[in-house]
């Protein structure tokens, strides 16, 4: 039996998970229009390779990856490309981004796929390539390109593949549902990932508030007759943070500023494992995902498998949203999510939950009060930070002190803000401070580069002037040395010539 370690801090907010009836999975209808952002992942946007007017089949590549930190986008159903333009997307900024818009034809015709069942005999590099081509980006929320995660490099040997089935945020049950309904795919997917990484062991971690998921995954492991360890641990928010679950299950800490691969672990979301299984064994790209539709403003909260690119409003309608015009719609969960400003925005690879709470269920926070230095935030912080200090330094924009206090170890879980009696929106300060620091670093790199180029140019211009000078000097020297050789001085000769001419002129006026 594995020893379960405790992490610092953490909170126990009301779970509200039963609301969306985890384990019961429906298909959401194919919407008349699909809006597919070219950037649904962390990194460089994909480049559209279809044109307006093209007819496309389900599974067809719409946009190609641009470099390593990028993944392609595929059509989730058949239809016609009607626009490639800037559209509102689900993003905290409320800004628009480039999208490929498809009018579906309702036929749902698909390309034929070819998978490989004998993946054990395949070279890891080819499998990684297939994962990249299938457009898989971390389905847990960050959208990190999976192929990149699977290439930790020769300096980081991987011992353990960890499937993070914690899903600790209140309300969300998408992973729970996935683990219940796709347990066999999950186990095989985990095996494929371990094979790619040459990891010795596979560990699946699930919080103990999901007994059904635990039972089904255990059954799938027995069915497959394979060596996979299933570990369960007590429910606490935010145990699902990558660094947190690693500490809980191994007692090891990922070094500050490091990644799990530094200590021989690669951590993936269960959805990513299932998408991998489908990409390899069925040859199917990532075009759908499971989304939790929940909140008391929905008459039919549920989990659905939905086409990526389905407008949020369609899914809310499907879950029978009772509109009162008041409530916010939240993308993600109540702790780490953000309010969506335009409901025509589509769901993407990172959308695990749409939360439609009533105004009493999740009221707008009261205005923040001054910090009373109670220290509750430091007690709650799972990363053992000092949130109160970070808050002061974020307000003072003191980047040095923020770095000193390990701002970048903050996982933005919101535990500190949750316990803060003064209702200070602490996480927003940290997000803003991180953004400012990244910005200044980028500007610093730019200006260093400009300085170098400016100085290189100055040096070049100086060198050019010097070269011109040198040439002139050389010409002069050459003329003089020639004079010395001939035993005559060219200047003297010129003067003589001029004198002769003058004398001649005077002689014959």
């Amino acid at each position, binding site marked *: 039996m594995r020893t379960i370690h405790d992490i610092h801090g953490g909170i*126990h*907010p*009301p779970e*509200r998970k039963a609301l969306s009836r985890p384990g019961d999975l429906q298909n959401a209808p194919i919407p008349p229009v699909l809006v597919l952002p070219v*950037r649904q992942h962390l990194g460089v946007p994909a480049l559209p390779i279809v044109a307006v007017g093209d007819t496309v089949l389900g599974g067809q590549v719409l946009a190609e990856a641009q470099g390593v930190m990028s993944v392609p986008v595929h059509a989730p159903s058949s239809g016609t490309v009607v626009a490639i333009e800037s559209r509102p*997307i689900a*993003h*905290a*900024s409320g*800004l*628009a*981004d480039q999208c490929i818009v498809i009018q579906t034809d309702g036929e749902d015709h698909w390309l034929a796929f070819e998978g490989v069942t004998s993946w054990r005999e395949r070279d890891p590099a080819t499998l990684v390539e297939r994962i990249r081509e299938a457009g898989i980006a971390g389905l847990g929320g960050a959208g990190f390109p999976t192929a990149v995660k699977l290439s930790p490099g020769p300096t980081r040997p991987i011992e353990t593949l960890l499937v993070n089935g914690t899903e600790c945020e*209140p309300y969300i049950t998408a992973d729970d549902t996935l683990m219940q309904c796709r347990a066999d795919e999950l186990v095989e997917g985990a095996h494929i990932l371990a094979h790619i990484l040459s990891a010795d062991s596979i560990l699946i971690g699930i919080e103990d508030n999901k007994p059904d998921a635990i039972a089904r995954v255990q059954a799938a492991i027995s069915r497959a007759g394979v060596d996979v360890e299933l570990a369960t641990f007590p429910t606490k928010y935010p145990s699902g943070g990558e660094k947190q679950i690693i500490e809980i299950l191994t007692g090891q800490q990922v070094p500050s500023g490091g990644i799990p691969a530094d200590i021989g672990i690669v951590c993936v979301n269960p959805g990513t494992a299932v998408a991998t299984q489908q990409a390899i064994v069925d040859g199917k790209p990532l075009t759908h995902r499971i989304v939790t539709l929940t909140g008391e403003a929905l008459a039919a909260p549920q989990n659905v498998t939905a086409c990526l690119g389905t407008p949020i409003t369609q899914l809310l309608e499907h879950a029978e949203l009772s509109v009162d015009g008041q409530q*916010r719609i*939240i993308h993600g969960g*109540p*702790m*780490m*999510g*953000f*309010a969506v400003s335009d409901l025509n925005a589509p769901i993407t690879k990172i959308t695990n939950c749409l939360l439609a*709470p009533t105004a*009493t*269920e*999740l*009221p*707008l*926070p009261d205005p*923040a009060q001054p910090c009373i230095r109670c220290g509750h935030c430091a007690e709650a912080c799972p990363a053992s930070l000092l949130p109160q200090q970070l808050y002061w330094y*974020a*307000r003072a924009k003191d980047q040095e002190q923020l770095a000193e206090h390990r701002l970048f170890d903050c996982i933005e879980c*919101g535990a500190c*803000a*949750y316990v803060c009696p003064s209702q200070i*929106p602490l*996480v*927003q*300060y940290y*997000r*803003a*401070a*991180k*953004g*400012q620091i*990244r*910005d200044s670093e980028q*500007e610093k790199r*730019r*200006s*260093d*580069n*400009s*300085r170098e*180029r*400016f*100085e*290189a*140019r*100055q040096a070049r211009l100086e060198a050019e002037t010097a070269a011109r000078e040198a040439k002139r000097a050389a010409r002069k020297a050459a003329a003089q040395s020639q004079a010395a050789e001939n035993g005559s001085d060219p200047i003297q000769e010129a003067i003589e010539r001029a004198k002769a001419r003058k004398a001649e002129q005077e002689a014959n006026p």
Partner: protein
Amino acid sequence: MLAMLSDQPLLAALTALLGLGATFGALLGFAAIRFRVEGNPISEQINALLPQTQCGQCGYPGCRPYSEAIADGDSINKCPPGGEETIQALADLLDVEPQPLDAEHGVEKEPVVAWIREDECIGCTKCIQACPVDAILGAAKVMHTVIADECTGCDLCIEPCPVDCIDLIPRKEGISFWHWSLPEDRASRYDVIATDAATRDAA
């Protein structure tokens, strides 16, 4: 000698102190010569804080000359691309009071990059000669283009262009440049953290 020292503790302490003093003094002296910084370190430090736009709005032909002028006592508020932030950083470095940006030299603007409307470019190479950071590519009589990553948005290529085909466009637009702003700087608040008061009390 040793016997005498052990007999007289006061003398021993004094000798030890003197010895230490001499050793470290020599070390420091050596370090001062061995690791001496070339040039004028303060102007280097000032230059490191300037934005390197190389636009000349400060009245000097580039950031380095301005940094040298500041080191010689010129005021710190003449660089519009750097704006308030740079003035603050300079004030911290030089331990002087920050002053507001001198409007005579210009106002702080959003960062821009140059963009050549390539079908209108006649390939005269005038902009190449003007660009302080060699950010424009092209040869005589063929169309030129700006390397956006290298362009500082200094504005110096605009004026020499005989056909006015260079625009300055915002450099930091779109979602990749967005980040959260501090709650007090923001008009609307979208805080989501935590659940309702009723259940919170129950928890």
